[in-house]
């Protein structure tokens, strides 16, 4: 059974489109506001549509687990990013077009006429630019993930609040009162979603704490955290899914990061493995056993499809979701044909390579190592993942397979492209990208 489908995709996009139109529909419902000229009305229309998209950003943020399975988490985040840029353009076009249509509206920014209004509108303009720029160029700004998260949440809520207040105050399009009340009600719900993600969920997760049982070193500066549930049964997840983890005694900490689960499902202990790359993962080797942790999830649809064999293209530490799949298959003696293309720079850096050899003994798994800098005498694949390499190792009946890609962006792009060139339907290609922000 396929998880991605045109029908589902079409349904969600239609649903999104209608929801984004809600502020505009409220404006023209029952009573028609007085017409004020084409250019000015386009400016107003863009403001309402921009506000509609902005509200939906809270719903399509990748943290609402009911939506993600239809698309995959990385597609949702990509969509969130695209729509964020669109909302930014629409909302900024709103005052520009209105002022061009009638320069008298510049007075909205005049502190002498109405100080709170001018301050609020200047805040929104600056906040929108900061919000968008900090999301696109977070690393260039040297912004840590935690600080970015704080800025993103606070500014988003601030913009939403000012946007709705502005619509209420202008009132021209939202008269009578019931229109304003409906608009506020809908946006209060969107605002609640942030409150739910940042406060309610951590509050609930504090009743289900975990603790670090041990920290194991792996090849290539990677570390595995073994997490065990404290006073509860643990978490039901599908192999290939990921969790958000907060380490330490405080579930409300801003430091919360997504990691693929690497352990087999159907067992209480969860393991996650990461490479020492960022500020957070660099601390893993010093984590003391017994440290408290809070997990949120599981998320993601990067999971094996029932009845399909698996073709896995993994690069470096991108192997983690595949490890969960393979360990689960080994545990369940699942004998589906599985091909793993595993790309790494050097042989000594191939994480989990000994364990993969063991798993190969138990299930129908073929591992093809690809090395960028192979050792002398290497007879396996070398270089980068490309169409020719995949074609050489392609299954005889590709229609019986689902295809999974996870790894560094260049490899991911190349592998997606190659699979498409080899005639694979996009709905059979599952890719997981965590480097979105």
């Amino acid at each position: 059974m396929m998880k991605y489908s045109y029908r589902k995709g079409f349904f969600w996009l239609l649903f999104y489109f209608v929801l984004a139109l809600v502020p505009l529909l409220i404006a023209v419902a029952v009573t028609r506001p007085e017409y004020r000229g084409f250019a000015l009305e386009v400016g107003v229309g863009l403001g309402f549509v921009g506000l509609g998209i902005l509200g939906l950003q809270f719903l399509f943020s990748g943290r609402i687990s009911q939506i993600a399975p239809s698309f995959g988490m990385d597609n949702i985040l990509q969509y969130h990013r695209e729509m964020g840029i669109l909302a930014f353009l629409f909302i900024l076009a709103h005052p520009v077009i209105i002022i061009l249509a009638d320069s008298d509206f510049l007075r909205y920014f005049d502190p002498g006429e109405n100080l709170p209004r001018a301050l609020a509108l200047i805040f929104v303009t600056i906040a929108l630019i900061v919000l968008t720029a900090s999301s696109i160029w977070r690393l260039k700004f040297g912004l840590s993930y935690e600080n970015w998260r704080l800025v993103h949440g606070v500014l988003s809520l601030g913009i939403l609040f000012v946007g709705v207040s502005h619509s209420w105050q202008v009132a021209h399009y939202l008269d009578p009162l019931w229109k304003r009340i409906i608009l506020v009600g809908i946006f209060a719900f969107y605002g609640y979603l942030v409150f739910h993600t940042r406060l309610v969920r951590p509050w609930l997760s504090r009743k289900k704490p975990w603790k670090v049982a041990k920290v194991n070193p792996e090849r290539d500066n990677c570390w595995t955290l073994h997490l065990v549930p404290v006073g509860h049964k643990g978490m039901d997840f599908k192999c290939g899914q990921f969790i958000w983890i907060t380490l330490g005694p405080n579930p409300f900490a801003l430091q919360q990061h997504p990691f693929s689960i690497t352990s087999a499902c159907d067992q209480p202990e969860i393991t996650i493995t990461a490479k020492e790359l960022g500020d957070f993962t660099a601390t893993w080797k010093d984590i003391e056993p017994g440290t408290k942790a809070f997990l949120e999830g599981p998320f993601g649809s990067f999971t094996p499809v029932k009845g399909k064999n698996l073709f896995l293209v993994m690069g470096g530490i991108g192997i983690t979701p595949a490890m969960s799949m393979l360990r689960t298959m080994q545990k369940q003696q699942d004998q589906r044909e599985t091909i793993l293309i595993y790309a790494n720079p050097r042989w000594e850096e191939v994480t989990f390579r000994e364990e993969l050899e063991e798993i190969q003994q138990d299930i129908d798994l073929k591992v093809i190592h690809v090395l960028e800098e192979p050792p002398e005498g290497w007879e396996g694949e070398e270089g980068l993942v490309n169409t020719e390499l995949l074609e050489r190792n392609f299954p005889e009946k590709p229609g019986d397979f689902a295809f999974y890609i996870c790894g560094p962006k260049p490899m991911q792009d190349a592998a997606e492209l190659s699979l498409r060139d080899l005639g694979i339907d996009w709905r059979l290609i599952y890719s997981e990208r965590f480097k979105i922000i």
Partner: protein
Amino acid sequence: MKKSIKKHKKLFYITIRRMGDLVGLLLLLAAILFALRGFG
């Protein structure tokens, strides 16, 4: 390879990953329709 990337992008344009553009375009049309209501 360049041709292949172009083809890939074209194909993805009609898939979910690029649907944001289509939705954005439709929303822009909706805003214009809203502004045209005075001519109706």
